[in-house]
């Protein structure tokens, strides 16, 4: 026996696995990260970017909770943009282009610097279960390692199968072998398994592209960052991306490959995402569109490798190249590798508790694509929560479950465990009913105190949040208590072409005007500048948002409070629904399967009606 018994074993070194290993170890659990290839840690298997709409908010939440994805993204950023700035602050979404190699390197650096964390390069092909309790794993080398908890983050590797045209072969990523054994074991144990499908575009040689035929898409003039840590600075130099379009010629060439398409020939059974269709799906389903947008994204600072975003395909490689060459700027393109589709096993996530622990096996957790999700951010946040909850469970502490009004992470996990998913699940802001509350500017205020209380987010992070809240409140108080003369006000209003006022007013009554921000006041009046200049930018930003959107924020808070009453009514996990005659049979079946822990959770299960909830409430004895 070369291994001690660990508290937590994390299987898989992708975005979910890395966050899981880091959080469990940082909380004090002795943790082992097992990955098939140590050089592929935190690999960006698809696009070299983090964040985006709703996903950027998730990265901020991960950072606020003390995860590493935000820090790693910031350190490896080659371009930063705040998306949706023309919309309200709830929609502002940070996104970075990243250096693929640096991203993996910084993740590995951080993990290597993490106490309590060991590594083992191997493939796990069995789990050991005694009396519905996980006790360890077995590897392909025949080694048994014991642990109190196991977190499976298998990504696309479990029985992974790659398709390019008529060719198909086993693999977890192109050039990497798949993993086998675990699905079969879990199915034996009573788990329900399914297949999903995803795809990735070809990678091009940037030296063969003609950028003069494309539109440049530069980063923000003043780039931001994900991490709330003050020691992490935004980048200074950036690389641009480029935009070009497909055309009828491209589409016609692609169509010649349809007969060999693994999708249309029925060789792929897995369900792919509707919102991330392959290029062949786009021209097939949306035949009326004569062009589709292509984003040309560099894979790093120094490399010539280019990610062709928008051109995901599993058509034969010769068709891929021929079609690419018809795209403006791609006339002479050479590719490093073709695009491909990949099928993999997942386990419908309704088999999980909100802690991501499986209902069947105690101490076994699932995170990432194994739960039917897609995206680095979605995977990373599940890994983080699984790591946290595995630690809390093995140390007999209360779980940390984020609610739908606290975090996108809460929305994601709540959706997964209650509704399941028919296609790879990606976060959208429209999935969050309280998105005005779940902004990228306040993830720290929302989550850092919770994480600090369990010992993950550092005291430094908590102090930053406390200072930010105090500063923000001071600014708001200043705006609500300070009057401005009509002369001074009209000077400022004139600058932004806003209607003049006729008498002295409080500053706060002007800030709700769409054209005005705190900066307009700071620049427009020296007294105000003197009062506000020592506040940091994040405080000014938060204060402005809270004042401008006060009525909307209050409205959503009210709605969230209504929900809370039901969340606090607990349901025992062994509650017997069959004894309640008045419940509809559909509700009984769903409730038995999902095993909600609160009445609020029960109410979000599809097929459980409001009258079922009332009846349930009665049966719970209030």
């Amino acid at each position: 026996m070369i291994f001690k018994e660990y508290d937590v074993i994390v299987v898989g070194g992708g975005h979910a696995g890395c966050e899981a290993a880091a959080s469990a170890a940082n909380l004090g659990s002795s943790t082992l990260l097992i990955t098939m290839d140590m050089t592929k840690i935190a690999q960006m298997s698809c696009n070299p970017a983090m964040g985006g709409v709703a996903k950027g908010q998730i990265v901020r939440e991960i950072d606020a909770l003390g995860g590493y994805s935000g820090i790693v993204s910031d350190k490896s950023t080659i371009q930063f943009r705040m998306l949706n700035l023309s919309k309200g602050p709830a929609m502002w979404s940070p996104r970075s282009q990243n250096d693929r190699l640096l991203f993996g390197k910084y993740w590995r650096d951080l993990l290597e610097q993490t106490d309590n964390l060991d590594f083992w390069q191997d493939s796990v092909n069995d789990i050991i279960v005694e009396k519905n309790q996980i006790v360890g794993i077995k590897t392909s080398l025949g080694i048994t390692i014991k642990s109190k908890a196991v977190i499976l983050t298998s990504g696309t590797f479990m029985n992974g199968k790659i398709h390019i045209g008529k060719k198909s072969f086993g693999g977890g990523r192109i050039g990497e072998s798949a993993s086998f054994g675990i699905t079969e074991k879990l199915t034996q144990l009573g788990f329900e398994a399914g297949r999903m499908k995803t795809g990735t575009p070809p990678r091009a040689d940037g030296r063969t592209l003609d950028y003069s035929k494309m539109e440049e898409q530069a980063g923000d003039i003043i780039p931001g960052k994900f991490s709330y840590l003050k020691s992490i600075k935004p980048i200074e130099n950036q690389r641009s991306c480029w935009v070009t379009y497909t055309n009828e010629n491209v589409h016609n060439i692609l169509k010649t490959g349809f007969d060999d398409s693994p999708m249309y020939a029925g060789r792929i059974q897995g369900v792919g995402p509707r919102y991330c269709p392959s290029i062949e799906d786009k021209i097939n389903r949306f035949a009326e569109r004569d062009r589709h947008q292509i984003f040309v994204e560099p894979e790093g600072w120094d490399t010539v490798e280019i990610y062709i975003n928008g051109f995901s395909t599993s058509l034969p490689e010769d068709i891929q190249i021929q079609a690419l060459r018809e795209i403006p700027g791609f006339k002479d393109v050479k590719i490093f590798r073709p695009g491909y589709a990949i099928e993999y096993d997942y386990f419908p996530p309704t088999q999980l508790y909100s802690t991501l622990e499986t209902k069947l096996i105690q101490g076994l957790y699932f995170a990432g694509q194994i739960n039917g999700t897609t995206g680095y951010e979605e995977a990373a946040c599940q890994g983080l929560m699984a790591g946290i909850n595995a630690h809390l469970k093995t140390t007999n502490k209360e779980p940390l479950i984020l609610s739908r009004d606290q975090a996108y992470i809460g929305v994601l996990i709540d959706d997964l465990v209650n509704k399941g998913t028919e296609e790879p699940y990606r976060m959208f802001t429209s999935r969050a009913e309280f998105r005005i509350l779940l902004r990228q500017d306040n993830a720290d205020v929302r989550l850092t105190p919770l994480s600090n209380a369990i010992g993950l987010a550092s005291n430094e992070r908590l102090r930053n949040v406390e200072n930010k809240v105090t500063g923000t409140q001071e600014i708001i108080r200043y705006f609500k208590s300070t009057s401005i003369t009509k002369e001074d006000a009209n000077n400022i209003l004139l600058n932004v072409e806003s209607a003049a006022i006729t008498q002295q007013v409080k500053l706060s009554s002007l800030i709700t005007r769409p054209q005005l921000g705190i900066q307009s006041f700071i620049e427009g009046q020296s007294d105000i500048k003197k009062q506000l200049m020592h506040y940091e930018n994040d405080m000014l930003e938060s204060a402005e948002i809270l004042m401008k959107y006060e009525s909307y924020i209050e409205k959503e808070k009210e709605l969230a409070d209504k929900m809370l009453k039901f969340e606090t009514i607990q349901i025992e996990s062994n509650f017997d629904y069959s004894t309640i005659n008045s419940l509809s049979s559909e509700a009984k079946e769903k409730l038995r399967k999902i095993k909600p822990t609160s009445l609020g959770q029960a109410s979000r299960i599809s097929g459980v009606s409001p009258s079922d909830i009332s009846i349930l409430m009665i049966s719970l004895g209030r």
Partner: protein
Amino acid sequence: MHYNLNDTIVALATPQGVGAIGVIRLSGPLAISICNSVFKGKDLNKEASHTLHFGKIVDIQGEIIDEVLVSIFNGPNSYTGENVVEISCHGSPYILQRVLEILHTQGARSAEAGEFTLRAFLNKKLDLSQAEAVADLIASDSKSSHHLAMQQMRGGFKNTIAGLRTELINFAALIELELDFGEEDVEFANRDKLIELINKIQAMLLPLMESFQLGNVIKNGVSTVIAGRPNAGKSTLLNTLLQEERAIVSEIAGTTRDTIEEALVIDGIVFRFIDTAGIREATDTIEHLGIAKTFEKIRQSSIIIYVFDCTQLNEVDVIEDIKQLHAGDIPVLLIANKIDLIAITPKYKYPNLTVHSIAAKENRNINELKKLLHDLVLSNTKVVANDIIISNLRHYEALTKANKALESVQCGIANKISGELVAMDLKEALTSLGSISGVIDIDQDILGAIFSKFCIGK
């Protein structure tokens, strides 16, 4: 979605239909203050628990709806354990409906099936042995109310709501598309077209809301004024009508001593007959007041039965009287009474009006008159044109909410506010419409609409 348990709910506590007394019950933190805001009498907020108070319920304009007895119970010593008010009104469906509407405008929400009992249980007012019975009650109540809703939704109404919802979902999908996929090459929601769509939807909502009032008319009674000169036989006609059918007698302690209301069901439609003081030149002040009331009643009515004594009046007089009625677009039935007293039934020629001849005392042609009334209601253009009648207050509430939310959307677009804020109001409108048709999961619908209609995904 589940309903809120922190707000104040209201419902009729006595069986729907007509009884001598109807009790309306309010429960929730604001039960007493909501009732007080429409109550003319003592300040209920200052009264002790378990006390009974006489007063009047008034509407926003200050018009008296009914004289009532109000019982107040402070929580937790009440049926539900919350603050509870019980208002005993006169048993006319019309009055009860009006009082419910007024309480609704003051912030009370229509209770869900079994909700009072549920709250009572949650506040430990019922013991566990009663739990199963309560659960069954909720299950069956909700089933029957659903059944009722489905029945009402057959035909035009259901399709209209479904159509409205689809249009709105497409609208919401466009807004969400530009929020979640704004970086991509997708079409954006054209605000002018959205306004156009909202106008279109509102143009459909408003008649639905109006038909609610019409629907109520059918459920709670078509107010039918019997007018005419003194001794034309109005009271005789009323008595004859009432004798013939099993009358629902409910004398309303109204505000006017000179009008009497009686209700009568003809082929499923409730008519409220209002006998009025005779129309003639006023000779003294008191009579003048009575006649003014008569005209007020006429203006508020849905049908006017003008009765004249065919032995006394000629065509000129009748035309003069009808002009005096100032009926506007209220349909008028011309009734020539006392044809038993003359040998030959005269032929009358009035523009746009036909004369129905009866002998009230002899019960002659009364059945024909009833059929005439019944047909008149069914042939009412509004009813027929829409074939949609909403007679459920909850539906009306939902339509009102949807309409209000759509107004906010319009306002938001006019002020160029950001899409996610517009989306809040849109979702509220969708939720309100969904609560009628029973479809709740809006987010999935919106995402479905996005993915099926738009090519997205880098």
